């Protein structure tokens, strides 16, 4: 059986790995946007690139500090932090997409990295949360940078919902199988302990 402190430790480890992966993704994405800005592929203003770098660095250092302090409540187990980090990731990606061509941005696919990585870690609830925030954020992007073909944009949003629900379903199935395996392991351990007790010096067998 998973205890609350075990759950908190798992959550802390998962969020810590998200911080590491965020450093890698951010470095690659910002190197790409800088290169594309220099070659003229995107028209993202330099102040926006610098501001995004500063915001992401500050947020990531902040998340690291929260995790180091171990903001773990006996029941909550950092549950709130996963939504804050994911929401901030999606907001930053939306700013990047908005300033690098809107619906035609080459960074649109970064949304899927956030979706899949979080859905696999946290399951259906997180997949629906990511799809909801993406839906609202992408509508905001389309309001700022209007697209020529709204039907195609609607289909893109629906496709994202499809991927989110499918990823959430697969993650839920995987989590269920993991729980079943864990129950089997516990049963085997308890049976071995009982068998060991019977075969011991005071046992009847």
């Amino acid at each position, binding site marked *: 059986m998973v205890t609350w402190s075990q759950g908190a430790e798992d959550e802390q480890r998962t969020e810590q790995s998200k911080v590491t992966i965020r450093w890698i993704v951010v470095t690659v994405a910002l190197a790409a946007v800088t290169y594309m800005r220099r070659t003229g592929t995107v028209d993202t203003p330099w102040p926006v690139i610098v501001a995004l770098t500063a915001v992401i660095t500050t947020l990531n250092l902040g998340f690291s500090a929260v995790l180091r302090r171990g903001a773990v409540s006996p029941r909550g187990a950092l549950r709130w932090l996963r939504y804050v980090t994911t929401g901030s990731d999606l907001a930053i990606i939306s700013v990047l997409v908005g300033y690098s061509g809107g619906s035609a941005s080459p960074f649109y696919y970064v949304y899927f990295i956030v979706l899949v990585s979080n859905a696999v870690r946290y399951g259906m609830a997180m997949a629906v949360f990511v799809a909801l925030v993406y839906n609202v954020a*992408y*509508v905001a992007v389309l309001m700022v940078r209007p697209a020529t073909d709204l*039907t195609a*944009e*609607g*289909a893109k949003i629906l496709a994202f*919902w499809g991927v989110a*629900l499918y990823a959430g379903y697969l993650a839920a199935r995987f989590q269920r199988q993991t729980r079943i395996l864990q129950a089997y392991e516990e049963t085997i351990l308890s049976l071995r302990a009982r068998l060991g007790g019977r075969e011991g010096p005071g046992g009847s067998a």
Partner: protein
Amino acid sequence: MHSRRLRSRTVGWGLVAAAVFVIALVLVTWKATSPLLFLLYPVLVLGVLALLAMAVLWALKHF
């Protein structure tokens, strides 16, 4: 028995609502004049899923 019949009627209306939601999804995608209309997607997608889940669970006699 009576409550079972009542539930089947509820499920029937749920399926009608799900079909209406699907038609609304198609219409919003096809005829959207403003991106703001895409904000209806979460309600429509989750609504369709919830109503279909209700129908499937009822058919499997979960409730």
